[in-house]
């Protein structure tokens, strides 16, 4: 539905009122901003003593860049792991063996219900206390494992609904040329479903990246944590957090944009619908009634 049906193009009086409204709106927003800036200024938050250590070369070299590398490293591992987990368990849920289907469903539903932060805390303690000899970096591994289990479950749902949303003729065609159901799934349906869900997976990457920030709460040296270490010496938590937040937003905006572009380019290569989803619950899953969203 195009929203322009809801109203006429404004006439001269309407346009005048719009202009007045805009001016009032801008004045209000600017007023609130100005108030914030004035208060922050009286508290000395714009002093160069606080901003300079948050922006100088030392901050980037020793804190933001290593932190960003750790964030990306955790996110990269988690994405690859989650895709593998998702394909395996998504196929598991489509299996014609009841036991496989049942186990996959329980696993997927369980890991989607438990908060990611809770899994991180648990795995961090588990690796730290009991698997110290095996796991060299408990915090990093805990972040990655927690992200894999949650996002992998989400992707498993994407795989399942992606296959279910293909035109029925695709599966029927596979069966009619003598492929078994497993072969049809693997060679006809899954490849198309995977391409159709690729943009949604890229959107899920935004979720992975954002959730990796929870690693801060278990002292994994990701971007927020490294900003925290930086400010503990230079006494400028607000400034360092601001820089870290801007980096996060830029990175995620870039990923969202890539997802959007990908959705448009791939639509010709599959009989399924490509859709990048709104980023909280990719809409493929919404149509299937399965849930997604997180952080």
């Amino acid at each position, binding site marked *: 539905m195009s929203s322009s049906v809801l109203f006429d193009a404004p006439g001269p009086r309407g346009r005048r009122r719009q202009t007045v409204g805009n001016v009032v709106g801008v004045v209000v927003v600017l007023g609130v901003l100005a108030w914030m800036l004035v208060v922050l200024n009286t508290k000395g938050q714009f002093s160069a003593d606080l901003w300079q250590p948050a922006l100088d070369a030392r901050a980037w070299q020793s804190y933001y860049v290593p932190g960003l590398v750790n964030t990306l490293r955790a996110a990269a591992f988690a994405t690859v792991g989650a895709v593998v987990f998702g394909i395996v368990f998504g196929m598991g849920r489509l299996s014609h063996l009841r036991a496989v289907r049942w186990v996959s469903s329980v696993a997927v539903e369980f890991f989607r219900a438990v*908060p990611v932060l*809770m899994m991180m805390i648990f795995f961090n303690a588990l690796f730290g206390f009991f698997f110290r000899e095996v796991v060299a970096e408990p915090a990093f591994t805990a972040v990655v494992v927690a992200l894999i289990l949650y996002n992998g479950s989400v992707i498993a749902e994407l795989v399942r609904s992606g296959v279910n949303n293909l035109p029925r003729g695709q599966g029927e065609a596979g069966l009619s040329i003598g492929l078994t159901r497993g072969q049809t799934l693997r060679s006809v349906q899954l490849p198309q479903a995977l391409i159709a869900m690729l943009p949604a997976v890229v959107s899920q990457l935004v979720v992975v990246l954002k959730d990796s920030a929870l690693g*801060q709460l278990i002292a994994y040296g990701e971007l*927020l944590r490294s900003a925290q270490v930086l400010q503990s010496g230079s006494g400028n938590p607000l400034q360092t957090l601001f820089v870290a937040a801007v980096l*996060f937003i830029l990175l995620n905006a870039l990923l969202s944009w890539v997802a959007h572009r990908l959705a448009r380019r791939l639509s010709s290569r599959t009989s399924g619908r490509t859709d990048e989803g*709104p980023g*909280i619950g990719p*809409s493929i899953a919404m149509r299937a009634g399965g849930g997604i969203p997180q952080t």
Partner: protein
Amino acid sequence: MDDDYLSGFTALLVQYDVLGAFWTNIQLTFFGALLALVVGTVLAVMRISPLPSLAWAGGAYVNIVRNTPLTVIMTFLVLGAWTQLGLSLSTNFTWNFFWFGVVGLGFYHASFVCEAIRAGVNTVPVGQAEAARAIGLPFLSAARLVILPQAFRGAIAPLGNTLIALLKNSTVAAAASVTWETSSVMKTMIEFQPNYIWEIFLTFAIGYVILVIPIGLLTTWMSNRLAVKR
């Protein structure tokens, strides 16, 4: 499994008030969801409104907030709004940080509520809007009386997903100094009683499964029941 072991674990559950921790998360979720619903609806109306500036502002809000980690939002609330701007939501610290947690959860998830409602609006046929215009309703009345009621019914599934996400994300209120909620309590328990680590984790995990599953079922049931047959 001997008696000592079991009674030790039971004593642990009582000592750390696990139920109280869950109650905190349920309260955070309830108030956070109310706030998110109100703010999200306003944002959705802004995004489909005739005023380009409002539509732009709504879009900008959604795109920025959606791309920001919730931890960052929570920390900003405490470091910026509370520490520097001097905003307090209660003189009692317990409630002050509880409400900051609610505000963080509400404003963060409002962007997802907005997108869910927009998706719902897209399920409303053009004819409905045309009919509303034809009987002379101005934009706000058309939105309030015709479009939004149908959009909400079409948006129940994604709204339910957002509610589940909000419940799970209520653990992130720990970053806004709500240190008596489930993930913080679990962390303390594991730190002091590592021998019970599996039992402690499973207790909390199953608690969340028990909370999440009814929401999911209710959502599915409601979206089927309330779906507008077309």
